[in-house]
């Protein structure tokens, strides 16, 4: 196999993996937008918050320790135990559900029926608030996220070593994929399958779609709006956690994580704000597109660093030629 082609394929596959992560973040946006028409700017921060909480719980960190120490003059930082990954993830899920409830109870419950721009502004406020809380709770230093890798009894026998290898030589052709990326793809696929099944086949899923479509009608068939909104924010929190784990495992848990929300914007432009499959396909297109563009055109001809703007460029083109995105609901105006 010629070297150039092998490289291209490797770049392509790496792009797919990056795309999976973009798609995961975009998915959180789509969930909330579908059910409540809120564009949740805080989705990226939620991923950061979830990842920090997970690491904090795992390491037995005392939440708000800086604050506590400053007020009481104590010197506590750690409980001195290590929580098993699976248990820590379960705790984090609980935290995200509480967060969902609080967001609904203290912010959006008071903004029902407001203009979309007001709801959007509220999510910007929420993003900054949450970032501050995350900082106060767990500290601002970069932390390594280690899920299941140093614990022997977490994954099936042999899996640990396999992920630790970090790269995977595909069929001996001499190109490499991060094993972590493969795991991420599988997890993402399972998550999407689960969400689609939930939305299509369950009572709550049906109620969710009903609420997204018409509040009044949903009430009249016995759906509690409040419950559905908390459910949706919890789901978005869960998706944020998964995204946070993946990004955190790849590049450490740090505050720049919240900026991945910006990368999800072009993904949404491509996939459409209301489509779960759209978020996935959009994420993959952006991931592959920016890597391939950088490799084939950007680096040789444009002096590189095209990855930073390629996604936005693509989104702009889509806005001009197909504003509803690839899978979005077609905009038809009856006159």
């Amino acid at each position, binding site marked *: 196999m010629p070297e150039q082609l092998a490289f291209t394929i490797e770049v392509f596959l790496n792009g797919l993996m990056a795309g999976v992560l973009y798609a995961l973040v975009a998915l959180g946006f789509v969930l909330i937008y579908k059910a409540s028409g809120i564009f949740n700017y805080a989705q990226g921060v939620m991923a950061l918050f979830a990842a920090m909480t997970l690491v904090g719980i795992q390491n037995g960190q005392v939440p708000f320790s800086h604050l506590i120490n400053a007020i009481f003059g104590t010197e506590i930082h750690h409980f001195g135990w290590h929580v098993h990954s699976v248990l820590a993830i379960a705790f984090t899920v609980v935290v995200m559900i509480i967060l969902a409830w609080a967001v609904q109870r203290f912010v959006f419950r008071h903004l029902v029926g407001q203009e979309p721009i007001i709801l959007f502004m509220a999510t910007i406020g929420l993003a900054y608030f949450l970032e501050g809380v995350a900082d106060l709770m767990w500290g601002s230093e970069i932390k390594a996220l280690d899920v299941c890798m140093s614990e022997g009894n977490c994954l099936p026998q042999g899996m640990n070593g396999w992920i630790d290898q970090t790269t995977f030589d595909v069929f001996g052709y001499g190109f490499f994929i991060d094993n972590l990326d493969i795991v991420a793809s599988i997890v993402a696929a399972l998550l999407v399958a*689960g969400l689609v*099944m*939930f939305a299509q*086949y*369950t*009572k*709550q899923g*049906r*109620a969710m*779609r*009903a609420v*997204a*479509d*018409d509040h*009044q*009608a*949903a*009430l*009249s*068939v*016995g*759906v*509690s*709006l409040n419950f559905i909104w908390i459910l949706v924010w919890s789901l978005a929190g869960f998706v944020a956690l998964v995204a946070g784990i993946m990004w955190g495992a790849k590049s450490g848990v740090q505050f720049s994580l919240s900026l991945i929300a910006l990368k999800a914007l072009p993904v949404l432009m491509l996939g459409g704000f209301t489509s779960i499959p759209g978020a996935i396909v959009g994420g993959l297109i952006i991931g592959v597109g920016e890597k391939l563009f950088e490799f084939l055109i950007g680096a040789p001809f444009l002096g590189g660093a095209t990855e930073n703007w390629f996604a936005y460029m693509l989104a702009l083109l889509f806005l001009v030629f197909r504003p509803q995105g690839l899978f979005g*609901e077609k905009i038809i105006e009856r006159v």
Partner: protein
Amino acid sequence: MKDQADSYVTDDGRTIGPVVMEMKNITLRFGGVEAIKDISFDIREGEIRAIIGPNGAGKSSMLNVISGFYVPQEGEVWYKGAKRPPMKPFQVAQQGIARTFQNIALFEGMSVLDNVMTGRLTHMESGLLGQSIWKGKAEAEEIANREVAEKIIDFLEIQAIRKTPVARLPYGLKKRVELARALAAEPTILLLDEPMAGMNVEEKEDMSRFVLDVNDEFGTTIALIEHDMGVVMDLSDRVVVMDYGRKIGDGTPDEVRNNQEVIDAYLGVAHD
């Protein structure tokens, strides 16, 4: 006047049961405006009960009180022999009171069938996991619910548009789909807010037939609001007449027709 607990048989041979819902001295205010002033009336099982009145009489407000969208400042709602505590609309729906809206509130993005299936939401009880993987109790439940939905779709003659997204349907059909969704809940009381508003004569005749058939076939208690006097008089067993938030008449269509106050409200009267 018949006793609340008694049943009686109408001229056309239908049995009207005891009182299932009673409104006692309901008063509803919006700021300084009294939309409903001290109104009491009851709804009996199996009857078609109409609420009529000129524009702005407070008919829709009354329906919204029954369905929980508005909470009255004064008065009590009694349902199935018990006083109903203040409730959210979705809780009222779960108690078996389904409704349609004057301006149609359908799930525009869903197909007709999906819309009707949402009417079955209150009848779904199996677990989340079972529903996701379509096994066990959930499967049987979904099939049963689907059967009910299909039966109602057949009944209202909208088989041909089962899979059509609601947004594409003409107004008259949307009204019928909304009725189908409300019926799918197999409600104890069905509330219809101006089911014939904005329809032509033919559509009105169709809708009237469906209302009568629903009442006849399923024995559903129906409370409806309507502008068209002719339609109301033909359809209903008993009529409440409202004007400026007050009740000015209550009784059979014939009694109401001959009520001087009602005639004045509809035709206008010179005050001197």
